[in-house]
């Protein structure tokens, strides 16, 4: 899979690495797949790196960050039994 992906990247397939990660995060957020604090924090870090590397615009970053933080709070509340 990695091999194919590398090749796709190199022959100019539409997906760049950043876009691939972004799509994955967006999908996880939309489908409510992130259920642990750790996984949400990891995605936030990935987003911050993409922003830093210019692979993601501020507006899109903020939109995804807000969704992830909302999810993080829900997970924390659930853990506290609220």
């Amino acid at each position, binding site marked *: 899979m990695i091999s194919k992906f590398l*090749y796709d990247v190199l022959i100019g397939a539409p997906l760049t690495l950043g876009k691939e990660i972004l799509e994955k995060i967006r999908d996880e957020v939309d489908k409510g797949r992130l259920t642990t604090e750790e996984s949400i924090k990891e995605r*936030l870090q990935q987003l911050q790196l993409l922003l830093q590397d210019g692979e993601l615009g501020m507006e899109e970053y903020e939109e995804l960050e807000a969704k992830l933080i909302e999810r*993080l709070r829900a997970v924390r509340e659930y853990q506290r039994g609220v």
Partner: protein
Amino acid sequence: MGKKYIYGIIEEPQPRKFGFFGIGEVEVYTINYEKLAAIVSDTELQEVDPTRKNVLAHTTVQDRLLKEYDLLPMGFGIIANSEDEVRSLLVKNYDSLIRELKGLAGKIEGELKVFWDQEAMMRQLEGGNRELDRIKERIRTASSPVEAQSLLMQAGKLVERVVLDWKAKYAQRAYNTLKQFSVDARLNDPLGLKNILNASFLIDKSRESEFKDEIYKLDSQYQGKVNFKYVGPLAPYNFVKLKLEPVK
């Protein structure tokens, strides 16, 4: 007494207010015990959200402290219930904190990431790689999607071979060279497929410019095949060996 957000620990016997602000835009100050001081700001929160703004506030405080002190940095999000709890942390761990601070005295962390350059990789592959040309041609004339998929996999393996070669030739060599200009070094997990080196270096403050010069030299030697990204000086997160005794 309210909760305290902790940024790190320094050697400072006098209580200080720093005149700059931390998370929640409130003042950063010290809670002292003998020679040590925890750097804190007040908070009402039980937990701090790891938003970009908060993470930036945390690292900005640490960066500012680093200019003046040797800093034992705390990870993001550490909150103590009270001033007493912070002081107990210093009391309980006093000797080991002093030892750790001495070990890190005069040192900073530098973070280096090396990525292969996409255009350079394309040039490398197009420059007479007959095997790849053959596969490309076969993909064009493939009789079924399954066959095309299998050929793509083969092409990918060729690319992977070049990446591994560059990793050994450029990334590993850069790491070994730069290690000689540092006190300690460690490899971190790569970030994505293009990242062939992700390393942290513990560097003497006095040698940081020499270290950076070496990166420029490597960069010019590698002629654009890989891209270097250096961030520093940072608080030496990756070289803190201390495990704090819990207070509660």
